């Protein structure tokens, strides 16, 4: 069985029926980089790059020596559909240098990279204009606060997802990590995002975001997003 999910623009195919215990995994998980790569019909190198820079939703189980990865098929499919809708084309060069996920024997780099992966899920959702795509980056009880057009706002992160989906694609956003500070189980990330666009953002807007993250069960999750929209 081979199903093409969406237009040829993405060229991503899903394959079923390869060697994995899918019959007895009700959630349909893929249990390794190899399986994820096979499912997306790409090399392991490419899917690792997608995770690092484009928010491909891959989860981790923390072990003493080495983490293992897994992915949910439905999440990969959702990611792929959105990627097709809003192609990123951040140089699909296969020879690009790998993110240092595996090479990183350094404990700091492992945490740093895990945090930027979480942030890239947020960025990928913002760019595609789909709240569900960024949802895995957040803790379920995350909150947001800040000022938008002079009015103070605070509330559940669900409002971010709604706003992002209502805003639609913002293909030109250029995010920059202004600061990443890690203190064992907590972290703060200051993200500067320029060239926001969309139905709600308007054109060429700039936002400063400060995210607080918590390492929960081996995965970094955003617990709070504090934002400031800059006046034009």
């Amino acid at each position, binding site marked *: 069985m081979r199903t093409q999910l969406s237009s040829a623009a993405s060229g991503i195919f899903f394959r079923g029926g390869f060697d994995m215990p899918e019959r007895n995994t009700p959630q349909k998980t893929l249990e390794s980089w190899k399986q994820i790569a096979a499912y997306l019909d790409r090399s392991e190198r490419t899917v690792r790059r997608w995770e690092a820079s484009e928010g491909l939703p891959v989860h981790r189980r923390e072990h003493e020596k080495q983490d293992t990865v897994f992915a949910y098929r439905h999440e990969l499919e959702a990611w792929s559909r959105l990627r097709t809708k809003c192609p990123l084309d951040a140089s699909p060069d296969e020879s690009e240098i790998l993110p240092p996920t595996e090479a990183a024997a350094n404990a700091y780099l492992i945490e740093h990279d895990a945090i930027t992966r979480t942030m890239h899920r947020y960025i990928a959702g913002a760019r595609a204009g789909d709240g569900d795509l960024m949802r895995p980056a957040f803790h379920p009880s995350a*909150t947001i606060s800040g000022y938008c057009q002079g009015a103070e706002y*605070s509330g559940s992160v669900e409002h971010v997802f709604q706003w992002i989906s209502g805003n639609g694609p913002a293909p030109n956003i250029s995010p920059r990590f202004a600061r990443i*500070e890690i203190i*064992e*189980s907590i972290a*703060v990330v200051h993200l500067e995002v320029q060239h926001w666009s969309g139905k709600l953002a308007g054109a060429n807007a700039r936002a400063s975001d*400060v995210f*607080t993250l918590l390492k929960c069960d081996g995965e970094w999750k955003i617990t*709070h997003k*504090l934002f400031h929209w800059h006046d034009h």
Partner: protein
Amino acid sequence: MTKSEYLTEYDGIVKTIQLYIDGSKQGKSELMRPAFHPDASFFGYAGDKLATGIPFLFDWIDKNGPAPKIEPRVVSVDILESIAVVRLEVAGWSGNLAGSGVRMCDLFTLLKTPGGWKIIQKAFHWHG
């Protein structure tokens, strides 16, 4: 932001953080309550247990009681117009729940409101 505006904002932020420090030192949550935004959140691990929610924090402060020897240090204050981040290191925590000589690191995010700078989130790491 001009230099004097910066200092005004900086001092306003530190004043808010001082309320937290005063409440921690005396073990009285009522002293720190005005520092927090009504929608503030609280997150962190105390050992293996995830502690969340501002009511948990206030309850903990009251039950912990006085911690007269805490040594708080402001490590960083970053101001981005209407929002700010403060990193606070507190050494020498003691009390009924804290034990003795424990160090805690706090990341406070703050929002500028008409009533002054308010803590909108406290995330902590407990160096147990």
